[in-house]
């Protein structure tokens, strides 16, 4: 790999925002394509960090400072992408905390990780109704619906979204990815959600798996 790209990747993992900014600037001046810097430098760094998180080598503070460093580099790249399609997103995810629940710490971390790994995220916020999820899926031509719940008393509203997707013939075409403090793999399976993310760093990998599954079908 190009020396600049491997250094960008390394500094993203270390969370060094100043170094990332300088390296991205140098890489651009040395003629490396913005998309290559994004994919091979910044995104690769965030993906490596996700693996380290799963292995228990890094924790939430390290994730946050790395995403901050990545954004520092991304800001330099943005002027080169005339419209959002030029960024060649992995896919579009409509994301929100389920109706009845107004907690968003976990959801926001998931959003940061998804954006950091190349997804376009439409964040609907908290207390999102089934109909709002469906409307957003149609409006933004979403590939995945991401639903978060903190409480056992609100997670029971998630099947309403799946039901609403079914009623609008979107079920199966737009897979549902669930997560949150109270959500388990068993619960996801029981309600017919196609995807489950244990934590924020698992979300991008699971989202990519869902997209691959969709391409095959």
């Amino acid at each position: 790999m190009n020396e600049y790209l491997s250094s960008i990747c390394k500094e993203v993992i270390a969370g060094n925002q100043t170094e990332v900014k300088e390296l991205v600037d140098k890489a651009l001046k040395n003629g490396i394509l913005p998309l290559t810097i994004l994919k091979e430098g910044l995104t690769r760094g965030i993906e490596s960090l996700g693996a380290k998180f799963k292995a228990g080598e890094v924790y939430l503070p390290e994730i946050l400072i790395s995403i901050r460093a990545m954004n520092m580099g991304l800001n330099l790249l943005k002027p080169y992408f005339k419209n959002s399609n030029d960024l060649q997103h992995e896919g579009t995810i409509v994301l929100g905390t389920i109706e009845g629940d107004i907690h968003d710490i976990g959801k926001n971390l998931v959003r940061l990780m998804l954006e950091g790994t190349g997804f376009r995220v439409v964040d609907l916020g908290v207390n999102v109704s089934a109909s709002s999820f469906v409307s957003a899926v149609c409006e933004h031509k979403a590939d995945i619906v991401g639903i978060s719940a903190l409480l056992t008393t609100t997670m029971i509203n998630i099947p309403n979204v799946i039901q609403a997707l079914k009623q609008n013939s979107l079920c199966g075409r737009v897979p549902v990815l669930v997560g949150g403090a109270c959500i388990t793999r068993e619960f996801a399976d029981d309600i017919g959600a196609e995807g489950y993310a244990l934590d924020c760093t698992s979300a991008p990998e699971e989202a990519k798996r869902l997209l691959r599954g969709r391409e095959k079908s």
Partner: protein
Amino acid sequence: MNISAKDRFLNIAHFKSHDLCLPSSFFLFWPETLILWMEAGAPEMIRNGKGRIKFFRLDHARFLWELHSGLEVAYYELKGQRYTYFITPIIPRYESRIIGEDEHSMIMTNEAGQKMMIHKVHAGNMPMYLDYPVRDKASWETIKKRLNPESAGRWPVAWDEYVKKFYNRDYPVGLSVGSFFGFLREWTGLERLLFWMYDEPSLVEDMMDHMVFFEGVIIKRVLKNIKIDFAFLWEDMAYKAGPMISPEMFRKFVMPRCLKITELLRREGVDIIFVDSDGNIDKLIPLWLECGVNGFWPLEVAAGMDAVAIRKKYGKEVILAGNIDKRQLTKGRDSIRNEVMAKVPFLLEQSGYFPCIDHLVPPDVPFENFIYFLNLVREICGLEKIDSYSPI
């Protein structure tokens, strides 16, 4: 001869008894749960703490909440609804007021200086915090002034009379000894605190050092006159995949300060020191043990905590409370029996265990199921059952 709740509590915590003790301090309920239960026919007496102790035959365990040394419950009442949340022990408190509302929610600033959104329909739900009072060093200095352990409002005016209440008691008394990570998060917000651990470590250390000073003054003054049976830290620094910060950061920021508090407590004879942290604390237990903390609650099953495995791993090093999966209590009797029988007989036999739900009892737990759980535990210990519909 009847053994007092205090002696039973101490004997169990010291691994000297296989008795049952259900300390009321570990039996917490969402307000909505109690309302639903009463609507479904449960007696009105369960509305308040004393009534619950009597009806559910819990063991009275008294926290010295009025000294404002730990996390406190606060309420906001509007149009017959009571909205519940928790605040840090700031004195004087800020004025709480509504600054905006719509059909579903209202936004207010609370007594601890936080801006929060409350769900109108589900009054018992935890609020979502939108902004926090500590944004930099200057705003920390403002909050710090409200964390004076000597503030007049923090201590009962008739201290001598207050102290006398605790002479010759037959129930255990606990003191909240604060929080390091937890309180700081309440003042800064999680994201800012996590960033500051890298960007502003000296400010984080100053905040934690102040908490050592604050709690130290309170502990010394209380223990001069009142014999405390247990201490309680509140941290909530884990989620279901593990701790929010690395063991290295825990060692750097939390451990040296926590040790100062536990060493002070132990010098004064308090050797039962609990920590309250939700989430998966498997990686934190050995660190807390190193800090001198030896009690763990609530041991959330949904986060993968297993009290039986913890007991087998740590033996008598750890006192355990909780770990009965609240989700199983929403199901039928078979599920509750499976959950209880897989844990309670073994843990009681080993001693050092207080059976209770793994956090606040949520509103989707039917009253009958909660009674069934209590009766099952009582049956294991050879005690007579509670009549579910008539007060004792």
